[in-house]
């Protein structure tokens, strides 16, 4: 066990936006909420997966809805308590600890807010090890865990608990209620016991976010290596491409932002072209017509000077980026995992080949 205070939050937010792999959006509002909660209630205890008893109730916490609404209404601060009460009452058992669902953007911060407010521990684990666009895209789905019973509350104090027949229904019903509540709500979903979390969860993800954030923040301080080498060795990343954005094609379908970003090579990649396709998060990277990486591995674009992650909503002509691949959580590479989040699910016409193998081939 260790504690998370104000300083750690900055690094966690920064690292999580790298792990967002282009998605997750701007963590700014989430960071402010976490800062307020820690200033008011004190630091949060972060516990490792091994510290939770097998039969205790662990609940992932998240917010759902439109980012623009969230940027206006933020939240009340009592949502965590409302969800805690609702879930504890439903199971007839107190919630033992909270955890994040995903790394990236606002939802990497909200569980910290919840843990601080209620004085509960935060488990160093999540269900993605990155960000993904859909509700069922969590490692717990591989283990047959259902998103429901899912508790939902708004800032006004309205609260609902859903029991649904499929994750598709959960998504549909939750979306309808979210709109009625004014466009942004807090949810507790995929409630699990400690044993399931241990079996399927992506371990040490909060710590990894923090380390990545710190690495980005201090990348220029290394004296024996170039900032780029330092960045790659710290993150364990594969350097896929370096280029200038020459075009961004976007399309909004349903609740998702689809698109393609085209890159002209610079430095040692001069003369080459690359293409990164995205659906909220980056899905595939193609260099000179050849796939070099696909989901579920992480494809991250970072600024060539600052090494700050560039999210898909901030892609812009002329920006110079380094395209970096990070291997995904190994469980995603099993057949059930690839069915949920493999390249074919997202419409990419290729089988999944792990990043490390593709990289060796290209070399």
């Amino acid at each position, binding site marked *: 066990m260790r504690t998370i205070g104000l300083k750690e939050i900055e690094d966690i937010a920064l690292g999580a936006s790298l792990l967002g792999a282009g998605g997750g959006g701007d963590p*700014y*509002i989430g*960071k*402010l*909420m976490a*800062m*307020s*909660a820690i*200033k008011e209630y004190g630091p949060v205890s972060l516990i490792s997966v091994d510290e939770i008893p097998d039969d205790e109730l662990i609940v992932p916490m998240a917010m759902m809805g*439109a980012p*623009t*609404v969230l*940027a*206006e*209404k*933020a*939240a*009340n*601060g*009592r949502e965590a308590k409302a969800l805690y009460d609702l879930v504890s009452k439903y199971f007839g058992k107190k919630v033992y600890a909270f955890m994040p669902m995903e790394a990236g953007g606002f939802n990497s911060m909200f569980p910290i*807010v919840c843990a601080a407010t209620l004085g509960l521990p935060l488990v160093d684990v999540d269900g993605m090890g990155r960000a993904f666009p859909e509700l069922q895209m969590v490692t717990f789905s591989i283990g047959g865990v259902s998103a429901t019973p899912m508790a939902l509350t708004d*800032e*006004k*104090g309205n609260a609902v608990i859903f029991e649904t027949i499929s994750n598709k229904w959960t998504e549909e019903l939750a979306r309808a209620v979210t709109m009625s509540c*004014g*466009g942004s709500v807090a949810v507790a979903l995929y409630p699990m016991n400690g044993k399931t979390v241990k079996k399927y969860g992506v371990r040490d993800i909060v710590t990894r976010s923090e380390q990545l954030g710190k690495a980005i923040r201090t990348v220029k301080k290394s004296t024996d290596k170039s900032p780029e080498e330092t960045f790659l060795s710290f993150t364990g990343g594969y350097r896929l491409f370096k280029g*200038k954005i*020459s*075009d961004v094609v976007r399309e909004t379908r349903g609740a998702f932002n689809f698109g393609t970003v085209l890159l002209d090579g610079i430095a040692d990649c001069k003369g080459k072209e690359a293409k990164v396709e995205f659906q909220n998060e980056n899905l595939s990277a193609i260099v000179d017509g050849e796939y070099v990486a696909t989901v579920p591995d992480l494809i991250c674009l970072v600024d060539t000077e600052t090494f700050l992650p560039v999210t898909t909503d901030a892609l*812009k*002509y*002329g*920006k110079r980026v380094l395209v970096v691949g990070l291997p995904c959580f190994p469980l995603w590479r099993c057949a059930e995992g690839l069915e949920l989040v493999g390249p074919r699910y997202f419409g990419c016409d290729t089988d999944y080949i792990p990043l490390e193998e593709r990289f060796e081939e290209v070399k």
Partner: protein
Amino acid sequence: MQYRLGIDVGGTNTDAVLIDENLNVVAEIKQPTSEDVYTGILCALRSILQVSKIDRSLVTKAMLGTTQCTNAIVERKHLAKIGILRIGAPAAEAIPPMIDWAEALQTVAVDTAIIGGGYEYDGKEIAPLDQEAAKAFFLSLKGRVQAVAISCVFASVRNDHELEAARICRKVMGEDIHISISSEIGSMGLVERENATILNAALHQVAKTFTDGFAESLQQEGLVNAELYLSQNDGTLMTMEQARRYPILTIACGPTNSIRGADYLCSIQESVVIDVGGTTTDIGVIQNGFPRESGVAVTIGGVRTNFRMPDVISIGLGGGSIVQKQSDGSVTVGPESVGYQITQKALVFGGDTITATDLAVASGLANLGDPAKVAHLDADFVQKGLEAIKMMVEDNLDAIKISSDPMDVVLVGGGSLIIPKTLLGAKSVQTPPHHGTANAIGSAISKVSGTYEKLISFDKTSREEALQAAKQEAIALAVKSGALEETVQIIDVEDVPLAYYPGNTSRVKIKAAGELA
């Protein structure tokens, strides 16, 4: 003949220009900005009147662009004590106002309160405005603050609660209290909009000082017939009274004035303007005669805000940038600069520091000072330095464009002689006459605007008719502020539908701008 006077107070130089009725430049001067800005304005005024020898009583308009507000925030000086009211509970309580501000800047707030009220995204009330709580808060502030900042959840959709709270505030605290409301200042995003509103309220004392100072200096120099205006950052003017109410809108008027001035001097519809000063270069884009607006949050003195700002990239490159040979053989230019001391420190002026200007003279790009004093510079060193400058400018030219299509480039500012005349990504590169005082010219030729904002039901009148009527109102307001009716054009239309508000209602905001009469 009547004249307009334009003054721009920058970090390094204070520029002044006189422009006649036909908008021709009659005189221009440039001098170092003084520590005390009031003295700087007075000196610039005396100097230009001396150079031009015009009859002072014929100056009918005087415009000032100033960085005073930015300086006040960055240096945390002269900020007023204020109270902060946020309307929106039970929403938004999780983030108190100013949570991520530097402590020294947080001290502007004497007290803050979050009270019931606010709106959903569609204009529906989250809760009714808690009038009693508002009254109690204002009573507690009475006698302790000079200004109040009021913000409200989704005020950019509907601002009734903000207006009602402002009425209560005036009733409780008297008519003299300065009130800033967020719907008049920022856009979507509560925290950023509230931040901008707080800064605006805290700046009201600074605004009073510089508007009074400007008026006094003109009076003292006998420019008794001049109407006074302040430049704001969208390229239009504010009256003295408006400047006192919305001082934050003067922030970044410098780059805006340069862009507007460049547009006037070259009249190219869409172009990139590169304004090179002594220490920094600002790169922006002209769109339909106005600077392109920034779409992202802008940080001022460490505070994240979202009020409209020109989309400008600033880089540490200027005429006074220091040139250095690095250990690996490469040559770097800037960001350190000799700044306003260039006339003493640069080689061509007899100094001992190699500056970007010296490279330009050594290569024959410019003819300035004593070229013999740079003759000894190694040709390879000069070439590498100029290439570094070219690369910096080309990279950022590329970054400000929205596609790879080449664009026309206009160079302005005293340091622009260091920029090569061919640039990758540029269709043409031109340096117009009077380019050195483009910012003061931009200030002098600014337009005046009027903004009309109202909730309109499209049930009673068709959308087209209603928008047309609203546009007429905006034009009338611009004319009332002093615009020539036949020159007024609509420059911005916002139409936000309020889904749950009765009667198919939209919040319509229209801005019109025209030439000063």
